C-alpha cells in the first residue's frame, strides 16, 4: 500500500521508521528509565516531602508538579533521541547513506525531527499516565495537553539535531545536557509556581521558553493559568518554527556534515 506513494516519500517514511526502530530496539534504555524516574519523583517529592509543602493554588504539591515531570521527560527524550541519532550517524559515517539518498534536505530533517517527536511524545504519555494513576488525576483537556507535548517534543527534537550536528565528541553532548538543558528545565517552573519567586526571578522566568511549555501543559492537565494558554501556544509555536528552520538551513549548508 505504501508503495503507491511517490518514491521519495517512501524514503522519508523509511527514515522515520528507522529512527523509531532505533529507540524501540533499546526500550529498556530509552523508554522505561524516564518512567521509573518520574515515579521516584512522585513518591519522594509528592508523597513524602510534598505533605510538608502548602497547596499551590488549591492543588496539592504532587498534582502541581506532575505536568512539570511530564514535560521534563518529553524534553529529555526528544532531545536525547535527535542529538544522539545525528551524532552517532556522523560518528560511524552512516549519515552518508542518508545524504546519498534522493531525499531532500527538508525531508531528511523532518524525518529526524519526527523520530525525536515520536520518542518524546510516547515517553511523555507513559509518564503522564503513570502520574495520573498515582495521583488520581484526570487531565482537564487531553487535546490541549497532547498538543503541548507534541510542540515541546518538536522544539527539543530540533534543538537536539542542532546540538548533534554541532558536537564532535560525546562529552560535548553531556555538557549541553548538564549545563544548559537541565538549568533551563529546572528554572522553567517545573517544580514551582512562578509567583512564589522574588520579582527579579519572576522576570528571568518569563524569558525562559520552557516556562511557556510548562504553563501550557499545566493548563491542559490542571486548568491552571499563570499566563494565558494562547500566549504560551504562540511562543511555543514560534520557538519550534525558528529551531526547525535553523536545522533545515544547517542541513542545506552541510554544516559539519560536508567538509
Amino acid at each position, binding site marked *: 500500500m505504501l508503495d503507491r506513494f511517490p518514491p521519495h516519500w517512501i524514503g522519508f517514511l523509511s527514515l522515520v521508521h528507522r529512527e523509531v526502530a*532505533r529507540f524501540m530496539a533499546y526500550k529498556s534504555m530509552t523508554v522505561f528509565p524516564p518512567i521509573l524516574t518520574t515515579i521516584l519523583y512522585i513518591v519522594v517529592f509528592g508523597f513524602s516531602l510534598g505533605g510538608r509543602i502548602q497547596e499551590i493554588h488549591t492543588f496539592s504539591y504532587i498534582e502541581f508538579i506532575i505536568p512539570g515531570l511530564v514535560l521534563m521527560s518529553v524534553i529529555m527524550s526528544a532531545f536525547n533521541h535527535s542529538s544522539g541519532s545525528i551524532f552517532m550517524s556522523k560518528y*560511524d559515517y552512516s549519515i552518508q547513506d542518508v545524504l546519498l539518498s*534522493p531525499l531532500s534536505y527538508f525531508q531528511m530533517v523532518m524525518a529526524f525531527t519526527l523520530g525525536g517527536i515520536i520518542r518524546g511524545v510516547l515517553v511523555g504519555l507513559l509518564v503522564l499516565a503513570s502520574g495520573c494513576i498515582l495521583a488520581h488525576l484526570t487531565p482537564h483537556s487531553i487535546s490541549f495537553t497532547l498538543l503541548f507535548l507534541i510542540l515541546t517534543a518538536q522544539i527539543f527534537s530540533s534543538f537536539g539535531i542542532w546540538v548533534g550536528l554541532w558536537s564532535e565528541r560525546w562529552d560535548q553532548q553531556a555538557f549541553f545536557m548538564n549545563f544548559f538543558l537541565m538549568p533551563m528545565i529546572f528554572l522553567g517552573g517545573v517544580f514551582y509556581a512562578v509567583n512564589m519567586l522574588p520579582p527579579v526571578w519572576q522576570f528571568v522566568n518569563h524569558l525562559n521558553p520552557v516556562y511557556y511549555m510548562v504553563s501550557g501543559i499545566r493548563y491542559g492537565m490542571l486548568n491552571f493559568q499563570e499566563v494565558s494558554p494562547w500566549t504560551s501556544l504562540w511562543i511555543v509555536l514560534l520557538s519550534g518554527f525558528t529551531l526547525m528552520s535553523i536545522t533545515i538551513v544547517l542541513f542545506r549548508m552541510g554544516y559539519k556534515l560536508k567538509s
Partner: protein
Amino acid sequence: MKFQNSKVAIEISGLKKTYGTTHVLQGIDLKIQRGSFFGLLGPNGAGKTTTIHIICGLTLASGGRVQIFGKDHLTHYREARRAIGLSGQEYNLDRFFPLHKSLTYHGRLFGIPKLKLKNQIEKLLHQFGLHEHRNHKTHKLSGGLKRRMMMVKALLHDPEILILDEPTAGVDVELRIDLWNFLRKFNQEGKTIILTTHYLEEAENLCQEIAILSKGKIAICDTKENVIQQAKGNLMNYFITEKQSEGFNA
C-alpha cells in the same frame, strides 16, 4: 531510467577544492562516458576521495561544476543520487540492525517497492556470499565481509553509475578476483564504473580509461593502452616519481 539521451555519464569542469590553505584540487576536468570502466589513480592524498565525494555531493566544491548525465548534480540532486551508487573508502555501516534489515531501510530510502527490494536483497546477499550472515549485525563482520556489504549497499538501487573508492583495500585475494569478475560483468551490462585503487594491476586489469591525479591536477587522462604507453609500459612509473617527492604508500 530516464538518462537515455546523454552519452556522458559524468562531466567535471574546473573542479576546485581548498581546505584552509591547502589546494587539494586545482581545477580538474574529466569526461566519463556512459558505459566506460574508468580508473582514477594517484598517490595517497592526491585527492581521489575528495573528487569522488564532491561528485556524490558529500563534500562541497570550492569551484567548478559536476554534471551527471548532462544535469547539474546539485540542482537535480534526486536524479543524480539515484544514478549513483557509492562504495566509499571508509566503512559506513549502520550498527543498529542486522544486515537484511539495514539493507531494507537503505533500499526503501530510494523508494524501491517492497517486493522488488526483498528479491534484490536476497539476490545480492547470495551473490556476495553474505546470505549466511543476514541476521548478524555489521560489527560482527570481518573486514572482507564489511567490504562486501559496502558493495551490496552501493548496488541495491541498481545505479547506472557505480563508484568504488579503494574497494579491494585489505581484502583477500579470493574476494578480489570474485569482485573483478563481478565488475566486468556489471560493466558489460552497460553500467558505468569509476574505480580508485592502490593496486596498479587492478587498474590495468579492469579499466578501459585511466586518469592520474597528481598534485591537484589531472596528470594524464586517456585510454589504458595510451596511458601505459606514455608511462613506458608501466603505470608504476607515475607513482615512482611521486614516491620520491611525497611518499607513496600502497
